[in-house]
C-alpha cells in the first residue's frame, strides 16, 4: 500500500514540475520510521531554490518592445566592448537624450564573427534586431540573402546628402546604386614606425616612400645578438589577425588584385605573385617575422615597423614606451594603393515601418558630421563624412594629434577591397591561410596562390549563382 501511495504522489509532483527535492522527500511519508539523514546527507545539494527562482524570475523579453505612448524602441546589435564599447554606449546615450521619440537599446553580441553568427541564427528563428553592426567581410552575405533594408528612400526622406559620405566608404556598401550598409566604424591600414629606433638609425622622421626605400633602411633597423635576431624591421600578422586585409593594398601596389568584381580570381597572376615574393623575401632574408599579435611585437620593440589598422592607434599610443610615428603606406613598383576596412550599420528588412524609420534616425545620428567627429576622436576610427573632416574642430584636433591626421589624409586615396576577400564567404581566411603558408612556411607564392585561386573559384560558385538570382544578370 505505501508503495502505491508513493507512486501516485510522485506522479502528481512530477506533473507539478519535476523537482529533485520533492522526489527525495516522497519516501519520508511512506516510511514507517522517519529517520534523520546521516551526517553526510547534508552534502547532497538541495536543488529547489535555484530551480524555483529559475522558473519564476524569467519574464520573456521579446526582441522588439513597443511601449504604449510615442516612444519607439529599437534594438541594436553590435560588436563593441571595452573602450570602444564605452564610446558606443556614449553615442547611444547622446542619441536617447537628444530626443524622446526613439529609444535605442544597444546589445553587444561578441566580436564581428560572433555577431554575424548570431544574426544568422536570429534570422532562422525570426528574432532579429532592428539595427546591426556588420564588418566589411560579413555585410555582403546578408545583402545576398536580401535581409537588409534598402536605405535610399530613408536617406531622401530625411534630406541627408549621401554625397557627403566619404566616397570609397559609402561605395563599398552600395549595390546598383542602392545603399544597404552605411559606414560607421571605418579604418584603413597605416604604416606605424618606432621613432626612437628611427632616430638612433639616423633615418629621416617619416615613413618610407617606397618599399624599395624601406628595404634599403632595413639593415639599420634589424638588430642581432649572437647570430639571433632580437629586433625585426617589420612584422606580418596571421590569418586570424587579418593578414589578407593588410596584403590587399600591397597587391595593388604591385599592380595586381585578388579578383575582379565579377569574381574572376586574379591572385594567381604575376603581379600578385610578385607581391607575395616580396613578402617571402622579407621573412627569408630575416628582416620580417610572422606573428599572431603584431601590435604586441611593435609596442614591445621587437619589431620597429608594421602595417596596422587606424583603430589600433589610441591603444598603441597608450601602451608604447617610445614615440610612435604614422605614415602613408609605402608605394610599390606600380605606385600607391590602400584599402578601407572596419564595420558599418545596416537595418533589417521585414520590420514595421515605424521601427525602420526609428532605426534610421539612429543610423543618421551616429553618422552625422558632429557625431562621427566625436566618435572618431574617442576611438581612432575615421570620420565618415567629408564635412566632418573639413570642420574646424577636426582640423584643430589633428593639429594636436598629428598621428590621427595621417589616416584622414590617406583616405581619399583608398579604394574598396576586391570581391574575393569581402564577398566570398571565408575568402578572408582562405587568402589569409595562403599568406601564412608564405610567411610562416616559406612556400613559393606561385604554387600557394594557385591553390588559393582554385579554392576561391570553387567557393565563389554558389555566391555567383546567388548574385545572379539577387541582381538578375
Amino acid at each position, binding site marked *: 500500500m505505501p*508503495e502505491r501511495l508513493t507512486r501516485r504522489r510522485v506522479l502528481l509532483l512530477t506533473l507539478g514540475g519535476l523537482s529533485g527535492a520533492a*522526489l527525495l522527500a516522497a519516501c519520508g511519508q511512506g516510511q514507517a520510521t522517519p529517520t534523520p539523514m546521516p551526517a*553526510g546527507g547534508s552534502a547532497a545539494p538541495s536543488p529547489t531554490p535555484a530551480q524555483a527562482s*529559475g522558473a519564476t524570475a524569467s519574464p520573456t*523579453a521579446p526582441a522588439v518592445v513597443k511601449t504604449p505612448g510615442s516612444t519607439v524602441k529599437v534594438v541594436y546589435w553590435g560588436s563593441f566592448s571595452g573602450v570602444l564599447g564605452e564610446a558606443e554606449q556614449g553615442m547611444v546615450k547622446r542619441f536617447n537624450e537628444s530626443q524622446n521619440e526613439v529609444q535605442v537599446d544597444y546589445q553587444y553580441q561578441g566580436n564581428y564573427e560572433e555577431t554575424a553568427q548570431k544574426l544568422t*541564427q536570429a534570422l532562422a*528563428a525570426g528574432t532579429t534586431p532592428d539595427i546591426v553592426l556588420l564588418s566589411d567581410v560579413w555585410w555582403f552575405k546578408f545583402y545576398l540573402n536580401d535581409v537588409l533594408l534598402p536605405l535610399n528612400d530613408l536617406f531622401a526622406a530625411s534630406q541627408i546628402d549621401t554625397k557627403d559620405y566619404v566616397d570609397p566608404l559609402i561605395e563599398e556598401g552600395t549595390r546598383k546604386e542602392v545603399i544597404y550598409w552605411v559606414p560607421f566604424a571605418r579604418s584603413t591600414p597605416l604604416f606605424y614606425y618606432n621613432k626612437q629606433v628611427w632616430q638612433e638609425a639616423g633615418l629621416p622622421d617619416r615613413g618610407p616612400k617606397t618599399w624599395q626605400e624601406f628595404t634599403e633602411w632595413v639593415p639599420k633597423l634589424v638588430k642581432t645578438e649572437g647570430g639571433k635576431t632580437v629586433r625585426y624591421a617589420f612584422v606580418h600578422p596571421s590569418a586570424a589577425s587579418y593578414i589578407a586585409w593588410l596584403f590587399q593594398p600591397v597587391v595593388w601596389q604591385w599592380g595586381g588584385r585578388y579578383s575582379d568584381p565579377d569574381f574572376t580570381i586574379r591572385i594567381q597572376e604575376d603581379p600578385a605573385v610578385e607581391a607575395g615574393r616580396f613578402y617571402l623575401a622579407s621573412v627569408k632574408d630575416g628582416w620580417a617575422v610572422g606573428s599572431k599579435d603584431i601590435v604586441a611585437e611593435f*609596442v614591445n620593440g621587437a619589431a620597429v615597423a608594421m602595417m596596422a589598422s587606424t583603430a589600433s592607434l589610441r591603444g598603441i599610443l597608450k601602451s608604447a614606451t617610445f614615440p610612435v610615428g604614422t605614415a602613408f603606406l609605402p608605394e610599390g613598383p606600380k605606385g600607391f594603393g590602400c584599402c578601407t576596412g572596419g564595420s558599418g550599420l545596416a537595418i533589417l528588412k521585414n520590420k514595421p515601418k515605424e521601427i525602420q524609420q526609428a532605426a534610421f534616425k539612429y543610423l543618421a545620428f551616429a553618422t552625422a558630421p558632429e557625431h562621427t567627429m566625436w566618435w572618431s576622436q574617442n576611438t581612432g576610427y575615421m570620420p565618415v563624412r567629408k564635412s566632418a573632416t573639413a570642420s574646424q574642430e577636426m582640423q584643430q584636433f589633428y593639429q594636436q594629434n598629428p598621428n590621427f591626421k595621417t589616416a584622414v589624409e590617406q583616405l581619399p586615396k583608398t579604394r574598396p577591397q576586391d570581391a574575393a576577400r569581402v564577398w566570398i564567404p571565408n575568402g578572408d581566411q582562405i587568402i589569409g591561410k595562403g599568406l601564412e603558408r608564405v610567411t610562416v612556411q616559406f612556400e613559393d607564392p606561385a604554387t600557394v596562390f594557385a591553390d588559393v585561386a582554385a579554392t576561391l573559384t570553387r567557393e565563389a560558385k554558389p555566391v555567383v549563382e546567388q548574385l545572379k538570382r539577387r541582381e538578375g544578370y
Partner: protein
Amino acid sequence: MTRRRHWRRFLGRIFLSVIVALVTILMGVPLYWVATGAVKTNREIYTFPPIWIPRNPQWSNFVEAWQAVPFPRFFVNSIVTTAGAVALELVFALLTAYALVFLRVRGRGLVFGFVVAALLVPSTVTLLPNYLTVARLGWINTYQGLIIPVAAVAFGVFLFRQHFLTLPRDLLDAARLDGCGHFGLIRHVVIPLSQPVMVTFLVIYLVAHWNDFLWPLVATNRLEWRTVPVGVAYLYQVEGVQNWGPILAGTLMALLPMLVVYVVAQRWIVKGIGGGAIKG
C-alpha cells in the same frame, strides 16, 4: 644495516620532495602568471625581461573590470544557471542510473547505450538546431533557455551506473524487506552510499557549466541575461589593442568561485572521483 637503510630512505624522500616541488612549480607558474598579470599595466605586460613581481600593483584593474560590465548580475545568472542545470542533472542521473541498474526491465542495455552515445555527438553541431528550438519556445533570454537544453546527462548516468553496480545487493534487499519502496531506497540507501560519486559528479558538472561559453552566448542576447564567461568577453576589443590588465582581472574573478568549490570539495574529491571511476 638498518641505519644504512634509514639513510637511503631519507635520501629517497629528499629526492621525491624535490621532484614534487619541481612538478608543483611547473604546474603553478601559469597560475602565478595570470594572478600577477591581473595587476600589471599593459606596458608591464609588453616588456622584456618579464616582470615576475609587479612593483606597482594595479588593483584598479579589478575595479575597472568590475565596473565595465554588470558583473554582479552576471554572477547571479551564472549561479542560477549552473545550480539549476547541475541540480536537474543530478536528479536525472540518479534516477536514470537507478532505473538502469535496479529495475528489471527488458532493453535496459539499449537505453543505456542510447544515453551514453550522446557523448559522441560533436558539441558544436547542436548550437543552431537548439537555438531554433529555444527560440520557438520563446526561451531566448530566460533561465529555462539557459538551463533546460544543457540539463540532459549522459556521462553522469555512466558514472552513477558504474557505482551502483558495486552497491551491496544484500543491503538493498534487506532495506526492501523492511518496507522501503524505491524512493525510500534511493533516499536512505543509495544516496548515502553514493556521496563520493556525487562529489565527483558535482565537480565535473559545476566546472563544465560554470565555464560554458558558447551556449550562454547563443541563448541570450541581452546584457542582463549574460553569464560570467560571456561577461569576460565584454572586456575584449573587437579591433585594436587589448587592455590585458582588466581582462586578466576579470578572468581571475570568473574563476574564483570554482577555486572555492575546489577548496571546499577537496576532502572528498580524491575519494569521490575514484569511487565513480572504478568499476567493481
